[in-house]
């Protein structure tokens, strides 16, 4: 596992890392970034509280791929709550670096479902 040089916990889900970072054994560094240390924000997208009664939702399918640029408000994930199938919108703009939530699994509200690289909001 690569060394995290610095980790600053910011308020509300945002963490700042200095390159390199390796969260799950894979190197998420995009091909287009310059070499060397690169400061960026890795936004941990947690499952929003979209269920009407329970604390869990079913993950149906990813609507974007790792490496895709996503805009704020873009539907990126399809889930099924106790009430309906619905799309989850991204609260930030950036590049999807990693899917944590896997299709056909159940995840709890508040668990990290994706890592999105952002510049700043």
């Amino acid at each position, binding site marked *: 596992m690569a060394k995290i040089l610095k980790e600053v916990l910011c*308020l*509300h*889900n945002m963490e700042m890392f200095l390159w390199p970072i390796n969260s799950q054994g894979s190197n998420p560094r995009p091909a287009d970034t310059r070499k060397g240390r690169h400061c960026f924000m890795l936004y941990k*997208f*947690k499952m*929003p*509280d*979209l*269920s*009407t009664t329970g604390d869990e939702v079913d993950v149906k399918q990813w609507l974007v791929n790792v490496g895709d640029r996503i805009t*704020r*408000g873009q539907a990126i994930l399809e889930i099924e*709550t106790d*009430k*309906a*199938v*619905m*799309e*989850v*919108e*991204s*609260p*930030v703009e950036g590049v999807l670096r990693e899917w944590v939530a896997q299709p056909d699994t159940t995840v709890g509200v*508040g668990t990290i479902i994706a890592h999105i690289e952002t510049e700043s*909001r």
Partner: protein
Amino acid sequence: MTNPPQAKIDIDSYEAGFLLGLYERMVQIREFEEGVKFLFLEGTMPGTIHQCQGQEACAVGVCTALEPTDWITSTFRGHGHALAKGLSVDEMLFELFGAATGCAGGKGGSMHMVNMDKGMIPSIAIVAGGVPVAAGMALAFKMQQTGQVAACFFGDGAIAEGAFHEGVNMAAIWDVPVVFICENNQYGASTHVSKVMRAATIAERLSSYGIDGRRIDGNDVIAVYEAARRAVDDCRAGRGPAFLELLTYRRTGHSRRDACHYQPKPEREQWLEYDPIVRLGQALVEAGHATTEELDAVRKQILTSFDDAVERAKTQPQPTLADLTTHVLA
């Protein structure tokens, strides 16, 4: 399916400053609602929220026709009404964050926006709950001869409630100065209005109470403003109550957890084209009152100040144990 209105917005008789003010206020409401939506998706803001994207022209058109001393009642979908009546982004956001500095001291939350100094009693989350309250407020205005007017916002979901019919009837028989405003966004939660009403328009229903009601394009802020102006003037001249049916469309689910599948796609797409902000923006550009870049700058400025307000909201003091027993009557 109710087709959206087609007519162009007629802005000829208004000055640029007034029109830009309407535009800015509508964008303010839209960006507030969008910003709050993302705070909810991030998990920064708990609970659920009921939002009014798409219905901005109703709130802004009506509240612009009111005096600061006039009073409004609102609903669970009340952020737009509050901003249109002059509440600040700060006091509303702080309230959504449950802060002691929020407009209801952090005790009300999204569904109870209030500022008595600005003429907004705490918004009432019970469907049709504001109708008899507004009738009572207007009765007080009449008896005390204050010259004030009450404006009562509710949705199409309220029109089959008992409280609606009782409140409207009492207001009618007492000739009180209240403007009832039905924001007909066509869905009461997930139920289309046609499933709860056999009459073609809500305005028809009001005529049976002796109240002259009209259906108005609720996505045309000028049409709403002009109709509200007439209604408010009538009420102030002792010819109340009045009624406005504002035909509009909700761009979001009933609440944040509602996927909104009941809005048929063709209907939705058609209505989204008749966005009240886009329509006024186009009219402003065509009339030469503003350029597209200037309108973008308005939006950016509002976004920046919203983000600043969010940062302030995160560090506001929360209510203390001692606050538990304040503002409690029983």
